[in-house]
C-alpha cells in the first residue's frame, strides 16, 4: 500500500507537530508513508475566495506530487474535501491522474476507519500516566469533514447516519472523556478568508463555539481540521484560557 502524506500548507508552516503526529500515528498503525517534498497547497484559499480559475497551477503541482499513490491521506477534512471536489488536470493525462486522486484522497480519521478498519489503537494509548481524572475532550466537528466528508452524523438530518469516525477513535484512547456540547455541530466561523473579510462575525462565531466547550469544562478542544482549531486557539489565547487545543492526531498517537 503506497500512501502519500498530504500536509496542508499552513500545517506545514505553523503546526509541524500535527504533521509529525499524523505521520507517526500512521506508522504506528503499520503504514509506510511517503511525504512528497514538492507539495504546497490544495488551492482552496483561492477557490473559496472566488478565484478557482487561478488555482490551476496548484492543481498541477498537486497532481505532480500525488499521482500514482494508492492513497493520499491528510490531517484536514477541509483540504481533503477540496481535493475530492475540485482537483482537475489541464490535459487528458493529468486529468486522469486528478480523477484517480479524487477517488483516493482521505482525511486521516476517515482513512483509519474506512481503509485501515482499525478497531483498537495498537499500543494502549493513555493521555498521561499520572492523570488522576479523565481528560475532558470537546470534539469540534469541522463542517467540511462532517457535512462534506460525512465523518460524523449531522444534526439536521433524520435517520441513521452511522457513527462519528473521529469520536469513535477518541473513545479508544484510555483516559479520554468525550464531552457533549450544547450545539454539537455548529460552525466555528473560520471559513478560510471569511475569518478576515467577515472579521466581526467570524470572531463572534469562534467565541460562541469556544464558550460552549468552556461551559462543559473541557481540558482540550480537538478536531480534524487545524484551521478551525487555529481560529479557536487564537480566541482562547486572547482570553488567556488554559484550555489546550490539539489536532486529533496528537491525541491518537502514542
Amino acid at each position, binding site marked *: 500500500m503506497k500512501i502519500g502524506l498530504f500536509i496542508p500548507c499552513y500545517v506545514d508552516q*505553523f503546526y509541524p507537530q500535527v504533521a509529525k503526529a499524523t505521520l507517526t500515528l500512521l506508522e504506528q498503525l503499520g503504514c509506510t508513508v511517503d511525504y512528497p517534498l514538492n507539495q504546497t497547497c490544495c488551492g482552496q484559499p483561492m477557490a473559496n475566495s472566488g*478565484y478557482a480559475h487561478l488555482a*490551476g497551477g496548484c492543481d498541477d503541482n498537486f497532481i505532480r506530487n500525488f499521482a500514482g499513490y494508492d492513497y493520499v491521506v491528510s490531517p484536514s477534512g477541509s483540504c481533503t474535501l477540496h481535493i475530492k471536489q475540485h482537483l482537475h488536470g489541464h490535459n487528458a493525462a493529468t486529468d486522469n491522474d486528478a480523477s484517480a486522486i479524487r477517488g483516493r484522497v482521505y482525511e486521516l480519521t476517515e482513512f483509519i476507519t474506512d481503509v485501515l478498519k482499525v478497531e483498537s489503537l495498537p499500543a494502549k494509548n493513555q493521555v498521561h500516566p499520572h492523570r488522576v481524572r479523565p481528560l475532558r475532550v470537546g470534539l469540534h466537528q469541522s463542517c467540511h469533514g462532517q457535512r462534506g466528508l460525512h465523518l460524523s452524523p449531522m444534526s439536521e438530518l433524520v435517520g441513521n447516519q452511522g457513527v462519528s469516525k473521529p469520536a469513535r477513535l477518541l473513545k479508544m484512547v484510555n483516559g479520554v472523556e468525550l464531552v457533549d456540547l450544547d450545539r454539537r455541530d455548529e460552525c466555528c466561523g473560520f471559513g478560510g478568508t471569511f475569518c478576515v473579510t*467577515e472579521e466581526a462575525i467570524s470572531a463572534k462565531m469562534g467565541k460562541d463555539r469556544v464558550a460552549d466547550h468552556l461551559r462543559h469544562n473541557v481540558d482540550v478542544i480537538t478536531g480534524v481540521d487545524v484551521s478551525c482549531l487555529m481560529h479557536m*486557539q487564537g480566541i482562547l489565547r486572547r482570553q488567556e484560557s488554559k484550555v489546550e487545543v490539539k489536532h486529533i492526531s496528537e491525541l491518537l498517537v502514542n
Partner: protein
Amino acid sequence: MSNLSHAEAAAVFNKDEARVDWHDETLWFVRSKRDRAAQSIPEWEGLREAASQIKNHVLSNMHDLLTQFEQKAIANGIMVHWAADAAEHNAIIRQILADNKVNQLVKSKSMLTEECHLNEYLKEHGVDVIDSDLGERIVQMRGEAPSHIVLPAIHLKRGDVGDTFHKHLGTDAGATDPQYLTEAARQHLRDTFLTRKVALTGVNFAIAETGGFVVCTNEGNADMGVHLADVHIACMGFEKVIPRAEHLGVFLRLLARSATGQPITTFSSHFHKPRKGQQMHLVIVDNGRSRQLGRADFRNSLKCIRCAACFNTCPVYRRSGGHSYHTAIAGPIGSILAPNLDMRQNVDLPFASTLCGSCSNVCPVKIDIHEQLYKWRQVLMQEGHGPTAKTLAMKTMASVLESPRLYRMAGKVGRGVLRFAPVVAENGLNPWYTHREMPEPPAESFRDWYINNKQ
C-alpha cells in the same frame, strides 16, 4: 436599504454583543423546533427527496405547467396577468386599484411584493397600503424592511414593539406583554379588514392541474383580508407552480415543520374561484427568474418554498441579522438569488458564509445552497466584480502557492505572511488580530524537519 456591505453591517450589528446573543438564541430556538418536528417524521428524508424531484420536474416543464395553469385559472374565473419585471408588476396592481377607484390596500405577507418594492411604489402614487401580518405591520410602522421572510420582526425585542405600538396604536407606555400588544394589533387590523375593498396576498403554491392556488398563514390575515374584500389580487413568482394537488401533500408536510416546527400552518387556504361578486386577479411575475432558470448552476434556487429554515440554521445570519443582507430575501437563499438580480450590488452576499453546509441540510427541497454560494463566488470574481487589490493579491498568492520554490521561500521569510497575504495587502492591517492571537511560528516547517529526521 443600507449601502453598507454585509461585513460592514454585520460589524455594526455586533457592537451590541448581548443583543447578538439574544438574536442568535431566538433563532436557534426556531431551528431546534424545526429539528424536533423533522425528527418526528421517520420518512423526513424521503419527503425532502420527493419534494426536490417534484420541483426539478417543475423547472424542466415550466412552460407547459404555466400555460396549463393559466388556462385552468381563467376557466375558473380568475383574471391572469403577466409581469416581466418589478415595474410591470407594480403597474398592474396600481391599474387594478385605479380600475376599481380604490386607493387603499390591505396586504398579507408576500416576499415577491417586497422584492418588487410595491409598498414604496404605491405610496408614491397615493395608495395607502397596510400590511396585515403582525410582524410586517410592526416593521412597516417603524419604516423598516422585514429582516426575515417568515418572522419579519425577529430582530426586534418586545420593548421595541411596545414603543412602536405606543406611538402608532396608543397602547400603554412601557407595555411589552406580547398578548396585550397582539390584541391591540388585532383590534386595529380588524377595522382595516372590514373597510378595505382590495386585498393582496402572496401565493405559496399554484396548482397547474386545477388552476387554483394555496396561501398559508398562521394568523388568518390573508383570509380575513380577501374574504372581506371585493377584489383579491394574488401575486406569484412563476416558479410557484406545481403539477397536481396531490403534490401538496408533500409540500405542506414539509413547509411549516421546516419553517417554525409546526405540523402545518393554521390556515392552508386553497383558492379556485372568486366568491360571488368578487374579482380575483393573479399576477405571474418573472423579474429575473427566467434568466436564473437558464443558469444551470443556479436554476435550482428557484425550487425554494420560502420556509426560511436556511436562515434559522445559518450561524452567520443568526449573528448578523437580516438587514445586513441589504436585499428583500436575506439569509443563505437570498445570497444565491440576489446576484441574479444585480451582480455588482450583491457581490458581497455569496461571501457572507463560511460554506458550513447546514443550509443545504435543512432545505426541504434540497437546494445545494452552500455549493451555489461557492459557484457564485467564482462567477462574480471571473466577471470582474472583485476589488482590484483582492484580485492582485490572489494572483500573487496563487503564483507563490503553485511554485514549491517560492512557497518554501515565503515560508522562510515570515510564516505569518503566507496565509493572510491577500488581506494584509488590502488594508495594511491584519483583522485577524482584532479578536484573536496568531499561532507562534515554529522554528522549522514540517518539511524541514522531515528532511532532517526522516530521510
